[in-house]
Structures are given as structure tokens and as C-alpha cells.
């Protein structure tokens, strides 16, 4: 076992693997990729929006509104599948809008 360790240590020494690597522009590449102030702002802004939404949801009893709308949706499901499609479309568009805005802010 100690023979193995000695052999490997000798091998790593011979291969010069412990020598320091030259920077070769690595630090500059890292510094260019660091998150900017815009990223910090985007994160902070998202957190604020979520907090405001949570407060409003509780203050206006959002779950009651959701329950009413859900009930209406279920009742109209049988007769008006068109409205469900519209709801789905609106949901997808809203999702894409959120992703797009987030992306635009993070690239700014």
C-alpha cells in the first residue's frame, strides 16, 4: 500500500502535474461573466413583486376569488370548451411574457 503511494507520488512528480497553471486570460473571462448590477436589480425586483403579490393575495382573500372563478370555469366547461381554450391561451401568453421580460432584464 505504501509502495503504491510512493509510486504514484513519484509519477505525479515526474508528470509535473503540480506546477501552477498560467492565467492566460482566465481571470478576465471570469470577470466578464460575473453577474452585473442589472442582474442583482432583476432578482431584487422579482422578489419585491412576489412579496407584493403575496400581501395583496392575502389582503383581498385571493383564494375566494380563485374559488369563484374555478367554479364558473367548471360549470361552463361542459357547454363552452371555447372559453377554456381562451383561458389556456391566455395562460401560455402570460407565461411567455413573464419569461421574456425576465430574459430582457437579465440581458440589459
Amino acid at each position, binding site marked *: 500500500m505504501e509502495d503504491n503511494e510512493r509510486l504514484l507520488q513519484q509519477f505525479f512528480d515526474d508528470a509535473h*502535474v503540480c*506546477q501552477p497553471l498560467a492565467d492566460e486570460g*482566465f*481571470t478576465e473571462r471570469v470577470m466578464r461573466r460575473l453577474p452585473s448590477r442589472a442582474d442583482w436589480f432583476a432578482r431584487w425586483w422579482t422578489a419585491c413583486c412576489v412579496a407584493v403579490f403575496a400581501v395583496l393575495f392575502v389582503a383581498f382573500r385571493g383564494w375566494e376569488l380563485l374559488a369563484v372563478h374555478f367554479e364558473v370555469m367548471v360549470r361552463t366547461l361542459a357547454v363552452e370548451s371555447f372559453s377554456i381554450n381562451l383561458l389556456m391561451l391566455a395562460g401560455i401568453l402570460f407565461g411567455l411574457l413573464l419569461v421574456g421580460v425576465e430574459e430582457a432584464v437579465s440581458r440589459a
Partner: protein
Amino acid sequence: MAVAGDRRAFDELVRRYQSPVRRFFLHQTLGDRHLSDDLAQDTFIKAYTGIASFRGLASFQTWLMRIAYNVFYDHARRKQGAAMADGLAAEVSAVERVAADESMPSASRSALGIDLYGALQLLKEEERACITLQLVEGYDIAAISRITQMKEGTVKSHLSRGKEKMANYLRKNGYNGR
């Protein structure tokens, strides 16, 4: 010590610690310099965004190497999934990669360098990480345990099995250390 948002201080930290981090990844990726630099960049970016969580209980380098190990672990899991899907990624020979990479240091392109990655390729990821952390970076078992989040006993068995495999490979290839 750099604090979040202090880019000049962080620049200094990257310059000081880029070598051990990049060298660690270079050995884990079996000499893939481009991939190891990408992973090293991810490590420093994670360190920058999470530097507030560094409490100075361990050395900064140990903390950084722990991030590096986690970055490599995540990368290995993703690659494992992709390799299972197409069955090709694991087939890329370290020897071919070293021969093709003109930016490798001359010592690594030599026959000895090819043996190095050939030998490291025999090891499991955990064994390779433990061996290079100990024999190249000089960490003791307690520090390797902190970096890899493995128990010290597990680190010892990875080291023992890995050294056995590597030593056998070297002897079979005519290397006897003299």
C-alpha cells in the same frame, strides 16, 4: 476578503486561486482544457454570488474547492444521463483528446502525460477526485472529507482502491518510479 459586489477584490482572488481550481478540473475531465476552464468559470461565479455564505471556518481555498467539487459532481451527473442516452460520450479516449489539444502543456502531451490521463481514466469519479486532491493538491483526509462531503472512512477507501488501480496500471505499462 472580497465581499459581494467588490469586483476588484474578487479579481485578485480569481488570479490567486485559478491555478488549483483549473488543475483540479483538468484532471477530473482527463485533460479536456476547454471543459475544465468552463467548469472553473462556473465555480468562480458561484463563489462570487455565494461569498456571503463563506464564514471563514475553513480556508478560502477549501471552501472554493468544495464549490468546484459540487460543480463537477453536477456536471458528471448531467453527462452520465446524456451518455446513457447516446452511448458515445464515455467512448472519447483521453489519449485522443490529449493528442488533439495543442494547448496542453508539453509535459502532459508527452508519453508520460498520456499515461497520466490513461491511468486517471481507470478510476471512478470519486476515486479520481480523492486521489488528485491528496496527491496533486496536497489536502489531507479531513480536508478532502470537507470538500467532498464524504465520511473520512469513505475517502480512505476511495483513496486505497484508486491508488491500487493506478499503481497496477503504471506497473503494467512499465513505470516503476526510477
